[in-house]
């Protein structure tokens, strides 16, 4: 189906929507990032930028970062692909369970995975040393790719699941009738058709991996990456401009990756015309293929379960690795004092941010795919930027931008939003950070979904007299409900587990759960830290389940949901 060129006049709703989106993105990300960029050219930052040319170590850090991104992108996408492929092409018991477990790592509180991996597989690890009497060196590249791949593969999984489900089995059947073996079909037909999805996953994982901060700090060892270097610049060298500069450098791979991904997705058009493939899916039946695929999938998932079990169990031990007596003391501690108000505040703020992030992601997707062709790339990039920046630097950008009222010609257009003296106790800045960190997922998945829907459907709605707003509400949104739902769940999970940007903008009025986890980890009280983590996981899972129920309640007869997918 040819890519339809859009040059229609935009109706009022769309124009307003675009204006609002531009405004929101400007305030939420463009201005703070601009501030960071500005800072990176100040003294302290300039030297860092110059170091890229004349300092070996700085260059090494950049190579490390890029290589880490590529590795995690590849491994995470491979895992996601395997699990998605099994869901769609293999018949087995426990599909729903595998699906849920494949999504589980979306809820990863800061430090939880890395710490659990160290406890299990470190030099004195329960499994590595205790059972196998080995002392592996997991600090560094190896440990990082392990933890990061496990943390981020669900993103690739969701993306590819949707794409695999919308592949037309008729294409496979055609290839079969031409004599191709199943394996050959896989290599020459299936994979090429999925390239846009694979590319999108790879690149999204790349961007998230290189911006990740908590894991390089805990398990990164001497493998320095730009994000951890930025952190050291700020907290050790007191060089904020330097931290900003490292983050600016970090934006370059993100930008490149974004451009490449746009290029790939223009090239291949996998769309089935009306979003619904015909024909029956042929399941893989050969026992060898079936069992080896299932074995791989279940072992990966088993590893995930192992990690989570470690976190949960760790919360019940007196002193991890030393005193395994069970106790509720850790829980008693976290529910005393500031813990309670942090739990409440964090949950409330995350709940506030979630629908905003969800709708923002969907509206961006709608405008980018349907409405404007040229400005679309720019909007897309800035929408994703919230994820591409390391958290600490985003936090600094916010602190610098919203530390006082923003005035133009003496008129206050924006009151102080961040920090102790801000309106609502600084809660607004925190919600804004939550929104801008979590809308990209919904945006990607919304775009992927919308691209699979026949644009004629929107046009049909317009030809029947429906305004842009009505079309969005009654037609587009219901059809991408799957994407909207995943966007919501992801937004809540992400918001609850965000740490690094928040450090700079928590106030006494807004105690945040993740900074309490940090405080416990800093004082080596892992029992408490794990208790907080377990609580966090529980809250997120319950809420995600509720959101799921709520949105699915309005299922209509005959509606075939476009498969759950997210980018």
């Amino acid at each position, binding site marked *: 189906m040819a890519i339809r060129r*859009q040059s229609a006049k935009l109706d009022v709703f769309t124009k307003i929507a675009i204006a609002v989106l531009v405004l929101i993105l400007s305030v939420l990300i463009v201005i703070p990032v601009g501030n960071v960029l500005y800072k990176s050219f100040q003294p302290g930052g300039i030297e860092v930028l110059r170091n890229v040319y004349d300092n070996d170590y700085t260059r090494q850090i950049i190579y490390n970062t890029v290589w880490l991104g590529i590795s995690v992108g590849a491994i995470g996408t491979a895992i996601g692909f395997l699990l998605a492929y099994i869901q769609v092409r293999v018949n087995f018991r426990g599909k729903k369970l595998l699906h849920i477990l494949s999504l589980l790592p979306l809820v990863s509180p800061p430090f939880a995975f890395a710490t659990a991996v160290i406890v299990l597989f470190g030099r004195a690890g329960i499994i590595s040393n205790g059972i196998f009497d080995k002392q592996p060196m997991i600090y560094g590249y190896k440990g990082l790719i392990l933890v990061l791949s496990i943390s981020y593969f669900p993103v690739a999984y969701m993306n590819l699941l949707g794409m695999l489900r919308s592949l037309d089995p008729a294409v496979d059947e055609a290839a079969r009738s031409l004599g191709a073996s199943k394996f050959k079909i896989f290599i020459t037909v299936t994979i090429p058709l999925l390239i846009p999805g694979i590319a999108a996953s790879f690149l999204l994982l790349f961007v998230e991996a290189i911006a990740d901060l908590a894991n390089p700090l805990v398990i990164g060892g001497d493998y320095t990456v730009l994000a951890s270097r930025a952190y050291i610049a700020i907290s050790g060298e007191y060089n904020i401009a330097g931290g900003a500069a490292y983050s600016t450098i970090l934006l370059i791979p993100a930008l490149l990756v974004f451009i490449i991904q746009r290029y790939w997705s223009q090239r291949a058009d996998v769309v089935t*015309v*009306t979003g619904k493939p015909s024909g029956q899916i042929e399941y893989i039946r050969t026992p060898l293929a079936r069992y080896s695929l299932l074995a791989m999938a279940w072992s990966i998932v088993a590893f995930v379960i192992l990690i989570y079990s470690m976190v949960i169990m760790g919360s019940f031990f007196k002193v991890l690795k030393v005193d395994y007596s069970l106790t509720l003391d850790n829980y008693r501690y976290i529910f005393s004092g500031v813990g309670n108000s942090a739990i409440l505040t964090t949950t409330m703020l995350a709940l506030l941010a979630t629908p905003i992030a969800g709708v923002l992601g969907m509206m961006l997707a709608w405008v980018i795919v349907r409405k404007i062709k040229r400005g679309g790339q720019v909007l897309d990039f800035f929408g994703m930027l919230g994820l591409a920046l390391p958290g600490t630097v985003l936090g600094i950008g916010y602190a610098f931008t919203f530390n006082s009222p923003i005035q133009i010609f003496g008129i206050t257009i924006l009151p102080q939003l961040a920090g102790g003296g801000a309106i609502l106790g600084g809660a607004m800045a925190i919600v804004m950070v939550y929104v801008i960190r979590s809308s990209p997922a919904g945006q990607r998945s919304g775009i992927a979904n919308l691209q699979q829907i*026949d644009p*004629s459907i929107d*046009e049909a709605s317009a*030809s029947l007299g429906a305004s842009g707003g009505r079309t969005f509400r009654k037609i587009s949104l219901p*059809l991408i409900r799957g994407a909207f739902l995943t966007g919501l769940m992801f937004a809540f999970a992400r918001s609850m587990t965000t740490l690094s940007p928040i450090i700079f903008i928590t106030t006494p009025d807004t105690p945040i759960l993740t900074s309490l986890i940090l405080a416990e980890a800093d004082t080596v009280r892992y029992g408490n830290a794990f208790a907080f983590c377990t609580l966090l996981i529980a809250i997120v899972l319950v809420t995600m389940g509720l959101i799921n129920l709520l949105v699915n309640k309005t299922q209509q007869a005959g*509606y075939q949901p476009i498969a759950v997918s997210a980018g």
Partner: protein
Amino acid sequence: MKNKSGQLTLSNITKVFGNGSEKVVAVDNFNLTIEPGEFVTLLGPSGCGKTTTLRIIAGFETPTSGEITLDKKDLKNLTADKRPMGMVFQSYALFPHMSVFDNVAYGLRVQHLSKEIISQKVAEVLETMSLSHLATRAPNQLSGGQQQRVALARAMVVQPKVLLFDEPLSNLDAKLRAQMRIEIRRIQQKLGITSVFVTHDQDEAMSLSDRIVVMRNAVVEQSGTPDEIYRRPNSVFVADFIGRSNFFKVDKVSSGKGDKVKVLVNNEELEVAAHPLAHKSKTPVLLVRPESIQVKAATVKKSDGIVSNVVFYGNHVEYSVTTSYGEITAIESDPIYDQIVKPGNHAILEFDPSRTWLLPSSGEIIREE
């Protein structure tokens, strides 16, 4: 029941995509006035600009220059949703998450009509399209033909001033296509709605239209009634696009009685009807449709050529005859089987000059003014 409204005028519509080296002219100076209730087809090969023109009418593309008016009102500032037009899409574009009833009711709900009126109107149109028993089904539970009818019902029920069709029948099988053609025409005539239909299928164009606009490479080659297009094409392209043609080289052209001209074809002088600008062409050709040619067995001495191929269709037979002036196709209806000239035999070709048409040859399209 004839509508007095629904007059659509396109003046000098031009659409250019891209800029600089990537410029593509999709529509070049398109002019057309469609009268209320008229059924006009835009016909042409892929990429000729017909779909773009339709989308400009609908409001899904803005013209680079030119004007469109509906009943003398300028549509320029009206977005697609504000134009009183209905559109039937090639892919039907039914809303997959709504039942047939809801699909059809959609446009009425947009108008905020009362529940009772909506119910009634939808029931009526479903009845007309024989879809009443499918009202609660989802689109993916319908056959292609049923989906097509739902799409049509949905567009019609809002009583648009203009109905637009974007190759709506191309996804149907031949028999269904023929059936739907008849239905569409029947309904359109009954309701008297101005209609613009886009297709590349000449059978559809011929059978449905009051007028046909033939387009090629962004330009209108000819516009006229089916008869005019068929009998008196402007150019070799148009002649060849609609129906089958034979082109005879012509040696001399001189004026004849009235508006006829005298031509020398194969050393025979004929008096034929001609395109007004045919005499201006350097190499005019004579169009003779295959069905106007009779093939009769002949002797070697008096033959025009040898029959190279014969295909028997039952109700007609198709001849390919190799002659000194090219490969000629002839079609004979209701043939007597034993009298069919077999391949390899000599034959003479006979036709009535009054059934022919002289036109300028390709390479110098002399456009209609």
